[in-house]
């Protein structure tokens, strides 16, 4: 603790998102929230609860069911001087907005020779394991990371959920924030009150270790921590929470692997060309002489996200991470 201790509150992850929005809308009157059911209902997960009452229906806007239209309108709102924070109701509901995201959101600043900024945020609950119907479970981060001009953050703790969202709102560029819905109401922690910013592009070691680096983001961070605990006595695991996928904190990534010599990347998304492959490629290019074994991936599979009665077979598990670590240590 520093001498000037910041007052904190114990919040759930989704409450921290809500707290960030209240603070940022109060701080900057050009920030507005828009999306499906965000106003009267406060969002299907209540992430936007209370905003309409506090800031009015013009700054917390219930939109038509129109993901591409919402994001397209947000582009125009930026041109009119607003900083829109767009909610996509669920991960897979965001796919119609990819047209706008790829064709315009990531390109428009460049198209104006840098003269015009598009400081919008797209936030959405993502990921599986919540016993939900089809298309409420996807991990679409790769589509966003792969889009030039767009940044991507994925918090795993309440404090980071608040701080990364605040950073995204203040950033001059479009930022997609993927919120792990699996731990919306199970991750609880101390969250600084008032303004709280966690800079984009800074990973965090959440558990120190010397034998294996478990590299994860979002809901896979607590899973990696449980795997590290399960491996205690057998191996000393370091857990690195990437927090931002773009910009990627390569320095922290390389430092961790330089220390441990072994890397396992955990993601929920399907394996092929997923973000774990990018991490593995960075390690192959820049850390090959530090590595004492292959970079392993524990991921979802290249199948449609399964119906919920069989979703546990799809999701990375503590057992699968432990198995990967044991194989790597035996190599």
């Amino acid at each position, binding site marked *: 603790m520093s001498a000037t201790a910041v007052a904190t509150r114990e919040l759930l992850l989704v409450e921290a998102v809500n707290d960030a929005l209240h603070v940022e809308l109060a701080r900057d009157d050009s920030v507005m929230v828009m999306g499906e059911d965000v106003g009267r209902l406060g969002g299907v997960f209540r992430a936007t609860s209370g905003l309409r009452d506090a800031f009015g229906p*013009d700054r917390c*806007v219930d*939109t*038509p069911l*129109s993901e*591409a*239209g*919402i*994001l*397209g*309108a*947000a*582009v*125009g*709102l*930026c*041109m*009119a*001087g*607003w900083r829109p924070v767009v909610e996509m109701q669920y991960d897979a509901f965001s796919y*119609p907005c990819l*047209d*706008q995201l790829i*064709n*315009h959101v*990531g390109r*428009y*600043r*460049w*198209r*104006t*020779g*840098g*003269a*015009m*900024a598009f*400081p919008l945020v797209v936030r959405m609950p993502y990921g599986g394991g919540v016993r939900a119907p089809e298309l409420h479970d996807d991990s679409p981060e790769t589509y966003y990371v792969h889009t*030039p*001009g767009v*940044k991507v953050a994925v918090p795993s703790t309440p404090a980071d959920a608040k701080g990364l969202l605040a950073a995204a709102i203040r*950033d*001059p*560029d479009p930022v997609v924030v993927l919120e792990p819905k699996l731990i919306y109401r199970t991750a609880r922690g101390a969250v600084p009150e008032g303004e709280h910013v966690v800079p984009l*592009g800074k990973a965090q070691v959440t558990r120190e270790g010397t034998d294996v680096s478990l590299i994860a983001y979002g809901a896979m961070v607590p899973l990696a921590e449980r795997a590290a605990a399960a491996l205690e006595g057998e191996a000393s695991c370091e857990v690195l929470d990437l927090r931002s996928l*773009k*910009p*990627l904190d*390569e320095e922290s990534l390389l430092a961790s692997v330089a220390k441990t010599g072994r890397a396992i990347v955990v993601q929920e998304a399907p394996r092929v060309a997923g973000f774990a492959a990018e991490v593995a490629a960075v390690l192959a290019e820049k850390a090959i002489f530090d590595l004492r074994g292959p970079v392993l991936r524990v991921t979802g599979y290249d199948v449609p996200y399964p119906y919920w009665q069989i979703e546990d077979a799809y999701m990375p598990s503590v057992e699968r991470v432990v198995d990967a670590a044991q194989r790597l240590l035996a190599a």
Partner: protein
Amino acid sequence: MAQVLPAERDLRRVIGDGDTVPDGEVDGLADHDLVELYRGLVLLRTYDERSVVYHRQGRIGTYAIYWNHEAMQAGSVYALSDDDWIFPSYRESAIGLLRGLPASTVLSWWRGHPAGWWNPADYNVASICVPIATHVPHAAGLAWGKRLRGEPTVAIAYFGDGATSEGAFHEGANIAAVVRAPLVLLCNNNQWAISTPLSAQTAAARLSDKAVGYGMPGIRVDGHDVLAVYEAVREGVERARAGEGPTFVEAVTYRSAPHATADDPSLYIDPDRVAAEQERDCVAVYEAYLTRLDLLDDQRAQAVREEALATMREAITAAEEEPPAGPELVFSHAYGDPPPSLERDLEDLRRVHA
């Protein structure tokens, strides 16, 4: 040959035929406005015709021709105030010239040179939208956002008949209507989307009928009649400014030029119909109108054309004199606060391509 709409008789028109159909007039337009509209028409026409030549000379790249859509463009822009925002598609690539955007900038855009970048806020002209209809929600958002800020700004979005089949058109029009965005949706129905005729694009009897489904008025106008377009768009702008929301204007034209310099319409279009449509030249129609009013004669028309030609000569020279763009422009401007990886990539590129 594909079936397309016959020449329409029930479209709003102002300009007569100098014979059996009498000329009308538009309230509020003085003689100098009528001449100013002509200058806009000629500037756009000259830009288009010279661009086709420049393409053949290898001086610009592939170019999307807008020949005989000048009345639709110039008439609508004249109904706006300078604070109002224009969202062009690639078919209106040079519409910014009517707002003082240098022709050299637009030529640079077609030359694939970064000197073709401009700041939309300098002219209230958005970047040229290449994908179809995806700028319709941008225009809705800008118009809505300006209204939320208490500014009286109106936006206009230009798109073709094919764009009305796109989801982005639907979503943009719907959101604009729901939030009562001060917006004019200007559909240039030139009846062809490359080789796809209107009959293969929609089963609607008229594109303007789509407006009712969004809860906004639809106006149908002869897109070759610069004064009729002006009047129709002015009506939409007035509604928008009065807080009554968006208006859909269908300007019926005909694409009597290839889609672009890379297109071969002989594969799909009836040459007789094209020849007939070329006879209905919107610039010539307006010249005849002004001549009947004694506002134009050959000498004055020639002077306006010469002025536009001089503008284009200077513009192509300026565009060709742009120094080659450096590789740093590949990396700069994509982000306000770029990821550190881009700096390393540029260093690497410079090392290899020193």
